[in-house]
């Protein structure tokens, strides 16, 4: 059983991700883990996020995540799990689970990768505690809005255009 729609999308996603990796080499890299074309990736972000330690909330650079395209992709949304840091502190993350926004099948993997980058750096996060996965982080983010985001860098093309692949 080879679902042509899934196969075609995964092939295109792979090409787009490789392009994005080349263009944003200092900020992020990918490893294709499984599948041909790949449906599972490990993402490495050289970006700063917040972690909760015994001494408080601190900045931490380097985030690793797994991205998986399910059997019914692109009908079913991409699944993302944080691998490290385990103590990541974010309203939309309860290690290892991540809450991106609602899935739309027309979204590309590049868009997911970019959104995750914005999320971990606090360029985007939920302010509504009922919708958050970590209420403490949500309350923290609301109190400390003036200090956020913790990293302003975005996954952008060399010409400065933000990458929007739809």
């Amino acid at each position, binding site marked *: 059983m080879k679902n042509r729609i899934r196969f075609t999308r995964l092939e295109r996603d792979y090409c787009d991700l490789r392009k994005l990796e080349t263009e944003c080499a200092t900020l992020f890299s990918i490893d294709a883990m499984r599948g041909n074309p790949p449906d599972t990736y490990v993402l490495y972000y050289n970006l700063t996020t917040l972690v909760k330690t015994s001494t408080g909330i601190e900045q931490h650079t380097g985030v690793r995540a797994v991205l998986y395209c*399910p059997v019914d992709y692109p009908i079913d949304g991409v699944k993302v799990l944080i691998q490290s840091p385990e103590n990541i502190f974010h309203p939309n993350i309860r290690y290892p689970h991540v809450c991106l926004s609602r899935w739309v*099948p027309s979204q590309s993997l590049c868009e997911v990768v970019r959104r995750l980058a914005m999320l971990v750096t606090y360029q985007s996060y939920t302010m509504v505690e009922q919708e958050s*996965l970590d209420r403490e982080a949500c309350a923290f983010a609301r109190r400390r809005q003036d200090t956020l985001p913790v990293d302003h860098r975005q996954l952008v093309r060399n010409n400065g255009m933000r990458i929007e692949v739809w």
Partner: protein
Amino acid sequence: MTNGIPAERYASVDRISWYKPDVLAKCTVMLLGVGALGNHIAQHLALNCVRILVVDRDTVSLSNLTRSPLFTEAVVGRWKAEVAAERLRIMNPSTAVHFIAGDIQYDVGLAHFLHSDIVIGGLDSRLARMLANRYARLAGIPYIDGGIDGESLTGRVCVHLPGDEDACYECSVNPASYTDVGLTYPCDNELEVPGVPTLSFGAAFIASVQVAEAVKLLLGMNEYVNPAVEMRWDMLHHTVLKTRVEKNPDCMVDHKEHINNTVRLPVPVDQCTVGDIFLRFAPACLGKNPVLDFHRDISVLNCTHCGKVTLALARPKAQHACTCSTRLVQIGYLHALSRSDAQQFLDIRLSDIGIPDADIISICGDGANYWLEFPATLCSKVTEERNI
């Protein structure tokens, strides 16, 4: 008696020239959902001797009793599928009725679809309809969709045949709708979407049409079936509207994808390990590193205490504990495993992963692909380990 059917029982309908209860008795219909529509569909199927596999994940509640003739106050709290099967067997002892009290997506093996002749939907959600449509297409059997709305007293029926000629159910689904159905743990809190209110007589009417279409297909009267034509009845204003559902070139379902030529395995999922698949059942022609594909999303879980890595079907909100009682942390997903990657999972039974009874998996390598089908054993039992 003909084929186990008491001749006297069918003496009067025998005078209908095209009606063949002995043919119907050899057919199996999978009925998805035994709520308002499903109750009436099930009754008609049973009365007409069709073998039935009833699937429903819910239990009977008091509010069901206004439109569900198979349920009574005495069965409130019991599985709908189980109660329906009991009542249908009483209604017509010649009819074989099996049931699965479980979720279409996680508890129904694909072989059940493959060995059914038709899928009829008595469903109340778009996601369930999409799944019914996809699985029926994979198995190469028709899907008869139905829906009702008590407020406007309207109902609709549409027959979707397998293959690439006509529109499937998802051809008419608006792309934006995928966002509504794609609720993904952990982000989305359970949306309390109230069901469409229905009335017993509206449900009975639409159910009758669905069964009529099914009987026509089962008796080979395909010229009287309008595939991919939605028939909509307005029972308030006595109007009927027929609308052709156009095939959508951008449909998210691969119309050409289907399962064929399965190899039946001698053991059910609870007696088969991952190692058995590679070492006992994988044909040698697949080379040294064949790939086993579950065709289901599987969570890879790690025990932070003992370091054991295990697999479990990815079900929403499922919590897993290790044998050492520590809560397992999810470290990844997979749907396929190569022989070399499977080393640490060889002793895991497929039922322990959550692969449902009578499921179909595949194994491929060196350019060849084999469908492996597990035998059915659970059709008359309640699937206890569920997470709804």
